[in-house]
């Protein structure tokens, strides 16, 4: 609750600071705000409390995911250097929108009522529609915003229809009441309930870009300015998956049989489409978009497993995925700026010689994304897979996932090969701010640290 209030206030302060001429203090100020929120959030640890007639509950689950999302925002903001140098007029608006949208993300991990889920999703989405189109004069950014907006609004309608059908069947918007009604009716109240559940699953699958509702993702990710793509593929996705798990665990645990087949189909499809789609891409940013689809698949696997290990493995996977993704997008941002907006693999040629730091950070990130040992990503996948194999019938799912992870290594290492094996087309060294390089080193060290001592995070929940 404190973090929601603080973020709203800080966002407004940021707007006011934007009126003043001193754009330079915006970034340090926003980082300070986020650090304060991160600290304040930790005070709620182990003090589960329900606020305002059970509208939201801040329990350890909410605190942990809030922490990860605030941390992710904190880590990706330093790479907005480019906007500061360009003396972008609207920097304050961007930062405020990011802070405000975090409020939506926090609502999505702590809601107890469907209304809170809905408003949380909308706060996050509407801010993202704007940020996707924030590069107003670039046609691709416009298209990304338009496509994201039309599709998002459509699937919001679907999600709402689902919520209403469930309200019709159970007579409540509260997760606990829905669970209670479902429990006395063997998990399926009537056909209306089942249909509502299906529509809900579709609506949220869209938000986390799970196949077959992922079709918007490559375009939108590619067209959106890289900084916000990074936010989109980390915070928005983590919030979506966390909300999904909370929804299933708190309201529809008794209806497991009703949603399990749908969800497992979505998961397998997401894994296959995401990884195969990523292989054929030549554009690095599009590849990352497909890779984020595939990671939604791994996260959904933990949800499908649906046992006591699910939440912890989703948490660890989200963190490792967020760290690696932030680095990947940050390096991409520097490289493509140097190469006049070139976002293909070729842009990375020879980066290992000109910028060893960028290349090394990128290599660690790619290893982490593909799940190579000694990085956080390895344990992320390991925890998800062990959660799944608890149920012996799901063994085949793990086999599929391992195969797909092997495919993943192929396309993640394309860029590593380009960096170290190819001659540089442009020998100029890419200039990075000292703070940004410090952040890159920090994230890289953090990734390796989690790869050696995963217990730091994995035992939290």
């Amino acid at each position, binding site marked *: 609750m404190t973090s*929601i209030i603080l973020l*709203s206030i800080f966002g407004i302060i940021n*707007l006011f600071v934007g009126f003043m001429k001193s754009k330079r203090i915006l970034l340090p100020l926003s980082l300070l705000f986020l650090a304060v929120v991160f600290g304040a959030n930790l005070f709620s640890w182990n003090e589960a409390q329900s*606020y*305002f*007639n059970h*509208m*939201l509950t801040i329990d350890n689950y909410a605190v942990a995911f809030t922490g990860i999302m605030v941390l992710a925002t904190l880590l990706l903001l330093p790479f907005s250097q480019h906007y500061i140098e360009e003396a972008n*007029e*609207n920097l304050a*608006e961007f930062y*405020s*929108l990011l802070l*405000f*949208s975090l*409020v939506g993300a926090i*609502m999505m991990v702590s809601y107890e*009522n469907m*209304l*809170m889920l809905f*408003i*949380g999703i*909308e*706060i996050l989405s*509407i*801010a993202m*529609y*704007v940020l996707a*189109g*924030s590069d*107003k*004069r670039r046609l691709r950014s416009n298209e990304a*915003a338009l496509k994201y907006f039309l599709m998002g609004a459509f699937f919001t309608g679907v999600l709402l229809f689902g919520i209403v059908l469930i309200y*019709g*069947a159970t*007579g409540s918007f509260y997760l606990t009441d829905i669970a209670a009604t479902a429990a006395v009716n063997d998990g399926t109240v*009537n*056909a*209306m309930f*089942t*249909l509502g559940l299906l529509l809900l699953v579709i609506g949220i699958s869209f938000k986390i870009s799970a196949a077959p509702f992922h079709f918007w993702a490559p375009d939108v990710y590619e067209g959106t300015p890289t900084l916000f793509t990074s936010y989109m593929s980390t915070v928005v996705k983590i919030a979506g998956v966390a909300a999904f798990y909370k929804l299933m665990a708190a309201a529809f645990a008794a209806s497991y049989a009703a949603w399990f087949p749908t969800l497992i189909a979505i998961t397998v499809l997401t894994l296959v489409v995401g990884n195969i789609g990523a292989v054929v891409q030549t554009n690095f940013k599009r590849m990352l978009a497909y890779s984020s689809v595939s990671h939604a698949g791994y996260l959904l696997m933990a949800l499908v497993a649906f046992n006591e290990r699910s939440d912890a493995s989703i948490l660890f996977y989200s963190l490792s995925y967020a760290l690696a993704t932030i680095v990947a997008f940050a390096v991409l941002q520097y490289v493509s700026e140097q190469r006049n907006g070139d976002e293909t693999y070729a842009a990375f040629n020879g980066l290992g010689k000109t910028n060893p730091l960028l290349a090394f950070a990128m290599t660690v990130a790619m290893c982490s994304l593909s799940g190579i040992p000694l990085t956080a990503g390895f344990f992320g996948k390991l925890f998800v897979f062990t959660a799944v194999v608890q149920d012996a019938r799901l063994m085949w799912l793990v086999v599929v996932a391992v195969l797909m992870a092997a495919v993943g290594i192929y396309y993640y290492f394309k860029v590593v090969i380009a960096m170290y094996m190819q001659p540089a087309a442009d020998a100029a060294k890419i200039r990075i701010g000292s703070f940004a390089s410090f952040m890159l080193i920090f994230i890289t060290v953090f990734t390796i640290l989690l790869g050696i001592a995963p217990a730091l995070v994995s035992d939290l929940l």
Partner: protein
Amino acid sequence: MLFYLFATLAILSAAYMVLTRNLLYAGFSLLVTLLSVAGIYVLLYADFVAVTQLMVYVGGVLVLILFGIMLSSRVHDKSVLSESVNKVWGVVVTGFILVGLSYTILNANISALPWLQAAGTDVLGQQKSTVQRVGIKLMTDFVVPFELASLLLLIALIGAAYIATDKPKV
């Protein structure tokens, strides 16, 4: 029966909205649909919702949409007209959804819902109006979403102001 009148009107004009090629006509038929829905709200004794529907949808959303049409098309020009695409696939997919939904409704056995049997309280209370009860709800149970909805509107305000302004490049 007023319900049937409004319902028919709403569905017909909604269908016309989807089928017509002229953007302006589509806008106006959306107006008819929204008004009919507002009429049905009145029949449902949901006076607050009915008034909000008139103010927000008819007064706000629709006017904005008409503005959007005017700003982005030259009326009297071919650009007001727009074709349909993917007709076959669209109809097939939607047909499936329609069959699924209808099947569900037919099987849902709505009147057997336990709460429907038990419902017996007066919708209107003593005041013969839902405004007071909605207001009390908003300020008690739903106060958090209410406040956060204001945040949402702030985001929309900032966003729309940013997106829609067109400053020449300096």
